[in-house]
């Protein structure tokens, strides 16, 4: 690979969108060419600086209010609250305060999907803290897969992704969303990835990355009647790459 090709490919590489062959060739070039390595460093730094929270514009309250008004059911009463006697006014006032309180609670309550993601992150953290990543420690998929037989009412897919840079370390049983699930453990450098798997009725879905929870990235997809949740402190791109390597796409 020459410098010209390297400059063209390094953005896709930084975005985690480069194919395996391209990655190998580019990494070799970056290793040998200090100028391109510096240019790549610039791309990464630029990417990082574009992810600052302060660059993101949140929807103003005014817009929310306008939309809320537009989305009201036509049948709803539009009578102004100040018509009628003081008792009505006072009662309405109290009702409005209660409604506002209820709304603020309802709006901050996480969705079921988000709650599950939080549960998954907690389980990930627990496995790291208790130093209990695995019940079966093996990088051999033919050892890990049979280990689950008889312990679960389904057979999770197991793959070693060492060639892709995510070696399989082992597996364990875990308990999520009121059921026993399979947890596969992978490493990338010093990072641990927990991949939780259980059967689902959901149709296949592409990998989706909800907002990080406590600094952990979570990725979710469904395929072939199984639902998959991967969690790690790896960045989104690498976790996405992991999902792709595991067959999410």
């Amino acid at each position: 690979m020459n410098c010209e090709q390297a400059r063209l490919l390094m953005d896709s590489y930084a975005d985690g969108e480069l194919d395996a062959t391209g990655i190998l060739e580019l990494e070799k070039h970056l290793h040998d060419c200090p100028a391109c390595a510096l240019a790549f460093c610039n791309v990464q730094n630029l990417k990082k600086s574009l992810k600052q929270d302060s660059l993101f514009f949140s929807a103003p309250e005014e817009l929310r209010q306008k939309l809320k008004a537009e989305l009201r059911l036509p049948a709803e009463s539009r009578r102004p609250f100040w018509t009628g006697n003081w008792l009505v006014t006072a009662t309405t006032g109290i009702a409005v305060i209660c409604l506002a309180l209820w709304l603020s609670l309802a709006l901050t309550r996480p969705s079921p999907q988000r709650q599950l993601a939080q549960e998954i992150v907690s389980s990930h953290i627990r496995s790291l803290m208790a130093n209990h990543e695995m019940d079966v420690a093996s990088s051999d998929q033919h050892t890990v897969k049979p280990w689950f037989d008889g312990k679960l009412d389904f057979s999770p897919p197991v793959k070693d992704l060492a060639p892709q840079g995510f070696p399989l370390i082992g597996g364990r049983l875990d308990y999520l969303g009121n059921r026993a699930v399979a947890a596969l453990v992978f490493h990338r450098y010093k990072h641990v990835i927990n991949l939780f798997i259980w059967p689902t009725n959901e149709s296949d879905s592409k990998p989706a990355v909800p907002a990080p929870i406590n600094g952990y990235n979570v990725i979710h997809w469904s395929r072939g009647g199984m639902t998959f949740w991967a969690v790690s402190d790896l960045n989104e791109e690498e976790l996405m790459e992991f999902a792709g390597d595991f067959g999410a796409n």
Partner: protein
Amino acid sequence: MDERERLKSFEQTVLPHLDAAYNLARWLAGNDHDAQDVAQEACLRALRFFGTFRGDNARAWLLTIVRNTFYTWLRKNRPPENVVELGDEVLAVEDVSANAEVLNSRLGDTETIRRAIEELPVEFREIVILREMEGFSYKEIAELADVPIGTVMSRLTRARRQLQKRLAGEFKPGAIP
């Protein structure tokens, strides 16, 4: 589904992405007033077409509508000469590495970065927002912006080179790319 259920389902599926919708509209339109108009119009359109939403990615779906709404608004409200035609010519390899130190020292400065993004042509700007702030994959961006993946790649690369040049240029008056 009755109207009440439809509204409720819309509020739960689509409205959580209002921030993303406004953010994209705000970066595209360039000011709060127009961005609110575009985002509001897009949400109302989304409600109208909510029955046709089948996917699993409500955010991508809503942002597609925001984008379309913006371009319709743009044609109506701004003179056409402001819309730059972009070729997707092959990128020239330019050595930006000489500015490495200068560049890095400007990267923490939000206002400078904000200005640099605002100065990008809108077709580049939207790809940068979708990739860096929304984290969409090339494929998702290609679908969302209705362009081939190759175009996403080349626009993103060119946008980044332009940002790097502008951020480096901030330091050296006169060095306008």
